C-alpha cells in the first residue's frame, strides 16, 4: 500500500463518514483532538462562570444550587473528558505508533471503539442535565451522592462508560509498545513520551476497572439502595472513599505522566541536546506508576481514616516525591550547555517546569499529615492540583499541540501569536492560583459558593486571573485554527528533531512510513 506523493492520511479519503469509520490511528487522534478541545471549551466556560460567581462575596450571578452544578460539571468534564483522554488518547494516539515506527496501533477497531465510548459516555453525562443536573462534585462522595435528588446517576453512568474508553486506549498502547516496535527499537531506545504513555497505560488498565465497579455500585446504590456505602443501611461511607481514590489517585498520574513525557520531548528538541539521565527518567515513570497505587489514603487524612493508615500513607506519598524530583532536576540539567530556542512549545515546557515545581513542593506540604489537617479541603488544595493539572498537564498539552501541529497538519503555526498566548496563560495562571494558596492558608474551604468578607480581595484577583487564562486559551485556539486553515506549508522536520515521527512526511501517509524505519540508536542523538 505505498501511497503516491502528496497523498496523506488527511486527504486520502474524504467525507464525514470516512472519518467516523476510520481505523487510522492518526484520524482517530484528530477526532479525539476535536472532542477533547470541545469539552475543554465547555469545562473552561464553567470555570469562567465559577470565577464570576466568586468575584464577590454573596450572590453574583447564580444561586447556590446552580453554583454547585457548575463546580461539579467543571470538575467532571475536566477530569473525565479533558485531562484523562487529553494526552494519551489524543496526542498519544497520533504519535505513539509514529514514534516507535509502527504502521498503526495493535487494535485499530478497539481504538475507534474507545473514541465512541468517550462520546457515548459524554452524551450520557450531559443527559443528566435533563434531570436537574448533578451537584455532588466530581468525587461523588457517599452518602450525599446517594441522597441527592437529581441526575447524578446519569453523570456517574457517563463516567463509567468513559472509563471503558480509557481502559481500551491503555490496552491498545500496552500491546502496541510490546509488539509493534520497529526493528532496532529496543525498550531503552524509545522516546520518553512513549515511556510516559506506557506507564500511563499500565495505570489505566489496572486502576480504571476499580473505578468502574465503584461507580456501578454507586448506581446500584442510587437505584436500589443496596446499602454497601450507605450508613443508614449499615454500610461504610469511608470505604467508598478508599475505592474511589484507589482509582482516582493513580488517575492523577494518568493525567501527569504522559505530560511529563511531552516535556522530555520538547526540552530535548528545543535545546538540541540529548536528554540528561534517560534511564532515570524512564524508570521514574514506571516508579511513579507503581508507587501511585500505594498512596491514595493521603486524600483521606481527616476523613475518619485511622491514625495508623494516615501515617503509612503519608510515608508512602513521600516516596512518590523522589522520582518526580528526579525528572525535574534532569530536565533542568538537560538545558545545561544546550542550544535553547525560545519557541512557543519551549516556552510552554519551561512554563511547565516553573509551575510544576510549585505544584510539586506544595504537594509535599500536603503529604505531611499535620500540615494537611489544616490544608485539607481548602483552597490550598485547589491551588495545588491546578498547579499540577493546569500548570502541568494543560501547559504540556498546549506546548505539545504547537510542537506537533506541523506534523499533524503539514502546516506551520503563527509563532508570534503562539508566544503571546503563552504569556497570557502563564501570567493569568499565576494570578489566578497563587492567591488561592494564600486563601487556603487563611482557611477558606473549597466548594464554597459564598465566603467571608476577609477572603474577598484575593478572590477578586483570582477571578481576574482566570479570565486572563480564558483569553489566553482563546488565542491558543486561534493559533490552531489559523494554522489548519491558513498555515504555510511545513517541511517534514521543521525543528530538526531526532525522534521517528519527524523522519516521515508532514502530514504522514496512511501507513506512516513509506519504508519501514530501522532504529540504530537512542531517541535523542544530538551530536
Amino acid at each position, binding site marked *: 500500500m505505498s501511497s503516491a506523493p502528496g497523498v496523506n492520511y488527511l486527504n486520502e479519503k474524504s467525507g464525514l463518514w470516512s472519518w467516523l469509520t476510520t481505523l487510522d490511528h492518526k484520524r482517530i487522534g484528530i477526532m479525539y483532538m476535536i472532542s477533547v478541545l470541545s469539552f475543554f471549551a465547555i469545562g473552561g466556560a464553567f470555570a469562567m462562570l465559577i470565577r464570576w460567581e466568586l468575584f464577590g462575596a454573596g450572590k453574583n450571578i447564580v444561586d447556590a444550587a446552580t453554583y454547585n452544578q457548575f463546580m461539579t460539571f467543571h470538575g467532571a468534564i475536566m477530569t473525565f473528558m479533558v485531562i484523562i483522554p487529553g494526552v494519551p488518547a489524543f496526542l498519544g494516539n497520533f504519535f505513539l505508533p509514529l514514534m516507535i515506527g*509502527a504502521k498503526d496501533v495493535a487494535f485499530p477497531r478497539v481504538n475507534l471503539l474507545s473514541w465512541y465510548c468517550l462520546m457515548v459516555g459524554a452524551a450520557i453525562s450531559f443527559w443528566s442535565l435533563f434531570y436537574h443536573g448533578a451537584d455532588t462534585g466530581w468525587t461523588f462522595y457517599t452518602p450525599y451522592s446517594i441522597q441527592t435528588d437529581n441526575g447524578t446517576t446519569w453523570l456517574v453512568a457517563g463516567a463509567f462508560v468513559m472509563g471503558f474508553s480509557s481502559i481500551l486506549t491503555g490496552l491498545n498502547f*500496552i500491546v502496541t509498545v510490546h509488539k*509493534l516496535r520497529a526493528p532496532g527499537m529496543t525498550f531503552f531506545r524509545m522516546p520518553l513520551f512513549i515511556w510516559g504513555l506506557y506507564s500511563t497505560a499500565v495505570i489505566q*488498565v*489496572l486502576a480504571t476497572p476499580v473505578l468502574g465497579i465503584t461507580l456501578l*455500585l454507586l448506581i*446500584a446504590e442510587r437505584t*436500589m439502595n443496596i446499602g454497601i456505602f*450507605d450508613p443508614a*443501611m449499615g454500610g461504610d461511607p469511608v470505604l467508598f472513599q478508599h475505592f474511589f481514590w484507589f482509582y482516582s489517585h493513580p488517575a492523577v498520574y494518568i493525567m501527569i505522566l504522559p505530560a511529563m513525557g511531552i516535556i522530555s520531548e520538547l526540552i530535548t528538541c528545543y535545546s538540541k541536546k540529548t536528554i540528561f539521565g534517560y534511564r532515570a527518567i524512564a524508570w521514574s515513570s514506571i516508579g511513579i506508576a507503581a508507587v501511585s497505587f500505594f498512596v491514595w489514603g493521603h486524600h483521606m487524612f481527616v476523613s475518619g481514616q485511622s491514625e495508623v493508615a494516615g501515617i503509612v500513607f503519608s510515608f508512602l506519598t513521600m516516596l512518590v516525591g523522589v522520582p518526580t524530583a528526579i525528572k525535574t532536576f534532569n530536565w533542568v540539567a538537560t538545558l545545561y550547555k544546550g542550544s535553547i530556542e525560545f519557541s512557543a512549545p519551549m516556552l510552554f515546557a519551561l512554563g511547565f517546569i516553573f509551575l510544576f515545581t510549585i505544584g510539586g513542593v506544595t504537594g509535599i506540604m500536603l503529604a505531611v499529615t499535620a500540615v494537611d489537617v489544616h490544608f485539607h479541603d481548602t483552597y490550598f488544595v485547589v491551588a495545588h492540583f491546578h498547579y499540577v493539572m493546569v500548570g502541568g498537564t494543560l501547559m504540556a498539552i498546549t506546548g505539545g499541540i504547537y510542537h506537533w501541529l506541523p506534523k499533524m497538519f503539514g502546516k506551520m503555526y503563527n509563532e508570534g501569536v503562539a508566544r503571546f498566548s503563552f504569556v497570557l496563560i502563564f501570567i493569568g495562571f499565576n494570578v489566578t492560583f497563587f492567591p488561592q494558596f494564600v486563601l487556603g492558608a487563611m482557611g477558606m474551604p473549597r466548594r464554597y459558593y459564598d465566603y467571608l468578607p476577609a477572603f474577598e480581595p484575593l478572590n477578586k484577583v483570582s477571578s481576574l486571573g482566570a479570565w486572563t487564562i480564558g483569553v489566553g486559551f482563546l488565542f491558543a485556539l486561534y493559533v490552531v485554527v489559523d494554522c489548519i486553515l491558513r498555515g504555510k506549508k511545513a517541511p517534514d522536520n521543521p525543528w530538526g528533531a531526532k525522534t521517528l515521527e519527524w523522519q516521515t512526511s508532514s502530514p504522514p501517509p496512511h501507513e506512516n512510513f513509506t519504508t519501514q524505519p530501522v532504529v540504530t540508536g537512542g531517541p535523542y542523538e544530538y551530536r
Partner: protein
Amino acid sequence: MSTANTTEYHHHTAHHFDSADAEYRASKLGLWVFLMTEILMFGGLFVGYIIYHQKMPETFAAGSKFLDWKLGSLNTVILIFSSLTMALSIYYAQIGKKAMVLYNLYITFFCGVGFMVVKSIEYSHKIHDGLLPGSLFHHAAEAGSAGVAHLPIYFSFYFVMTGLHGSHVLVGMGLIAWLIVRAHKGHFGPQYYTPLECVGLFWHLVDLIWIYLFPLLYLVG
C-alpha cells in the same frame, strides 16, 4: 456438517502486522490485558465482600443459609465442564478436526444456557421470598427476633456479584455463538484459531471467578 469439505479459509493478517504469528501474539497479549481489567473489576467486589464479611460475620453466615448449595454445586460442575469443552475445541482446532471443534462449541454454549437456567431458578426463589438487595429486601428474617442486622447487605453483594458474573456468562455465550457461526464456515484450523483461543480465555476467566464466588457465597458461613 460438511465443513471439512469447503475450500480452505484463509485469514487475512491485518496490514500493520508483519506476520500472522505476530498478530496472534498481539491478540493474545491484548486479551490478557483485558483479563487483567476484569480481574480488578471483580476483585474490587471481592475486596468489598471480604471486608464486610469480616465486619459482620453473623450476617454473612445467616445470609448464606438462604442459598441452596446444591444448585450452586450444580452450576459449578456445569461451568467447569464447559471450560473443559472450550479447551477441547481449541485442541481439536490445533489438530485440525473441524467437526469436533463445532461439537465442543455447541456443548459449551448449552452449558452456558444450563448455567443461566439454574441461575434464574435461584433468582426467582430469592425474588419470591423477598431476599433482595438493600431497601428492596422484605423477608421476615430481618424483622423477626432471630433476625440478623444488615442482612440486606449480604443480598446486595449476592445479587451484584452473581449479576455481574451472570452478565459475563451471557456475553461469553454471545461470543461462543459467533464462534459457532464461524466454525460452520470452516474458519478455524491449525493455521488460524485466534478467536477460539481469545474467547476461550475469557470463558475460563468467567469460570475462574465462579470458582471463587461459589464457596464465598454458598459455603462459607
